[in-house]
């Protein structure tokens, strides 16, 4: 008997009050996915492009060993640097979240549990490569050496703010550090990164671009434009989809149409797609290296899906307990990226609890000292303030007459002057001509 057609409405595996269920995640054992030649044509890859995009590239196994063909064989010193960046990112996040709760900054976005997707990738790229971050990639800012005070000044919209008070907190930028300006509009940076990479190729440079978006924003047309242009011109870039399972309250099944893989979008566009354990520092590093090498050798872009979990709320304005089980993060099967790298270093005999405690204290002090310095540039409630007249600058390269006029009007308004604020051909002007 036939039925009328019905919509399929996707539902997450668990909502509040239900038991967390990650059985939908397809997990491969560490070391089991083969690593193709980065120069291989898509059709000639072993394993096949489809396998690469649906299996899960993992290096760290349950005994904290680095195993398999994707092991990047990093020196312990490099791993320690990675751990330091990830720990700094986490401590910075925790401190800034607290300042938001104290009413010192208006808004914040944490990346708890997702530190590796930024830190490992940035370490795997070259300093001259251009990064197009999203708003949950603070690890990129850390690796590229953005001063903590500069980041905090941006969060405070104070007199030291790189954005001159124009952007919501966390929308950093840094042309010297080759970090593109973060937009609040989702996925816009993805095709822009491809354009940047196209320009690098047009100019004959070997710099590549890399960008990050969330799995939710892969639903935007910009995602598809990025993949299409990257594929059409073989633009040298690395396109990362951070699949942290949640787009505010919407589970990842919406953006993917409940397909088990975002990486699998790649082969449809003629691009390799790598599905990677995003909480495995070594796997993220190795996958990024592979894609970067492929891009630099002229074989074009790679789509990388970084499978991770958004432990934090979407932002300080969000309460995830309203849409997902409270204990879901604890049940996440891929663990914590910091903890896994720490355990790996310990297993190598290159780290221990005492060193970890000492590093934590050192970085906490660094964050605290930076916060004290940042506050001297002003906070929302005290200290020096930005000149509101700055709002008229940088709309255009040079100030057009109407903005010059409006700046004068604002200054008169702020000075409490009612005279000559309102422009117009009022009666007393009659006969005075132009």
């Amino acid at each position: 008997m036939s039925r009328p057609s019905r919509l399929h409405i996707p539902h997450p595996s668990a909502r509040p009050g239900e038991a967390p269920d990650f059985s939908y995640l397809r997990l491969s054992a560490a070391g089991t996915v083969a690593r193709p030649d980065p120069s291989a044509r898509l059709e000639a890859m072993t394993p096949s492009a489809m396998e690469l995009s649906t299996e899960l590239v993992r290096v760290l196994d349950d005994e904290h060993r680095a195993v398999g063909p994707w092991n990047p064989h990093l020196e312990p010193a490099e791993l320690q640097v990675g751990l330091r960046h990830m720990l700094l990112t986490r401590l910075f996040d925790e401190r800034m979240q607290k300042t938001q709760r104290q009413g010192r900054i208006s808004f914040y976005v944490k990346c708890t549990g997702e530190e590796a997707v930024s830190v490992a990738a940035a370490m795997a790229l070259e300093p001259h490569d251009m990064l197009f971050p999203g708003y949950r990639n603070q690890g990129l800012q850390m690796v590229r050496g953005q001063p903590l005070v500069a980041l905090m000044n941006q969060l405070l919209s104070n007199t030291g703010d790189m954005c001159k008070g124009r952007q919501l907190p966390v929308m950093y930028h840094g042309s010297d550090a080759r970090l593109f300006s973060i937009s609040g509009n989702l996925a816009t940076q993805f095709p822009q990164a491809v354009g940047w990479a196209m320009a690098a190729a047009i100019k004959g440079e070997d710099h590549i671009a890399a960008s990050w978006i969330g799995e939710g924003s892969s639903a935007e047309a910009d995602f598809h434009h990025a993949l299409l242009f990257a594929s059409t011109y073989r633009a040298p870039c690395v396109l990362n989809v951070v699949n942290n399972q949640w787009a505010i309250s919407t589970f990842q099944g919406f953006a993917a149409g409940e397909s088990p893989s975002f990486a699998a979008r790649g082969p449809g566009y003629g691009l390799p797609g790598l599905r990677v354990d995003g909480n495995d520092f070594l796997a993220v590093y190795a996958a990024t290296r592979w894609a970067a090498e492929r891009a630099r050798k002229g074989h074009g872009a790679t789509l990388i899906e970084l499978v991770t979990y958004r432990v934090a709320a979407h932002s300080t304005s969000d309460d995830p307990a309203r849409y997902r089980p409270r204990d879901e993060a604890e049940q996440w099967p891929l663990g914590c990226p910091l903890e896994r790298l720490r355990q790996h270093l310990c297993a190598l005999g290159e780290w221990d609890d005492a060193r970890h405690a000492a590093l934590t204290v050192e970085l906490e002090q660094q964050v605290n000292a930076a916060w004290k310095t940042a506050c001297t540039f002003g906070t929302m409630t005290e200290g020096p303030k930005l000149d509101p007249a700055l709002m008229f600058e940088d709309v255009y390269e040079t100030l057009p007459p109407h903005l010059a006029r409006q700046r004068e009007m604002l200054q008169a308004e702020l000075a409490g002057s009612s005279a000559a604020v309102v422009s117009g051909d009022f009666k007393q002007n009659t006969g005075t001509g132009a």
Partner: protein
Amino acid sequence: MPQMNMVQAIHSAMDVMLERDRSVVVLGEDVGYFGGVFRATEGLQRKYGEHRVLDTPIAEGGIIAAAIGMAVNGLRPVTEIQFVDYIYPAYDQIVSELARLRYRSAGDFTAPVTIRTPCGGGIRGGQTHSQSPEAIFAHVCGLKVVMPSNPYDAKGLLIAAIEDNDPVIFLEPKRLYNGPFDGQPDQPAVPWTAHAKGEVPEGYYRLPIGECAIARAGSELTIVTYGTMVHVAAGAAQAVGIDAEIIDVRTISPLDTATIIASVKKTGRCVVVHEATRFGGFGGEIAATIQEECFWHLEAPIVRVGGWDTPYPHAFEWEYFPGQTRVANALKRVMGEAA
């Protein structure tokens, strides 16, 4: 001096800039091998190579996003959106990204992108090939919006747009590509060779963005207009027999209000004319400015003439188009108002 039609003048501007500046690239749908559906880029790919004149996928959002990325990486992209009616998929990249990149990064990043795009009707394009959406770009801070009305201005302003460090929406009234159309489709077409502004230097020159031109000096009434309507308004004023001062706005944003205000204070009467729909149209901004700045100099209400507030209908193109009759009626009404 060589004679050029508007397509040739626009082609010449890109040719000159591709030659002068290695960072200039041209990209868009059909602009490369084929040379563009209006032939504005004909031969440029053969001359400058496939890396500087690029055919793109049919994805306007992708074109503008890629251009932004290219500009951030030191190029000066000149994009073509084949018809402005197709620009809307790129609206987010234009409004949220291109227009505000300098602002949001406090000048750390800029994107000198030019967006060339044919606009306007009168070519039997129906509602998807005839629009004049200048107002929705003029409303966006950070964009410059230019619409030339003749070949000489088109070349000089396009070169200025390409050299500008801010993004420029460069609207090309396509009914003017081949001649100064004055709104009378039944009359024989007049070519640019018969027009003074069809004389265009071969080489480099630029005209200032942000300045109106006085297309015709006059004393009785000011017509503020741009694009195709400059020629329609001139025809209507002549038919009515009034000594109109015709201001060709040329740059819609930032607007040169000083020239407009000075003219209206002189004449005391003003009709604002554009091809775009009237409601919420750019004419409202012009009229409001005149009202504020020229109130006691006005002898009559400011009247706006535009397309009707409907989509541009294929079968009723000339009933829709604000032709000489509609403009002339407005001129007569404003002149008839007793001082």
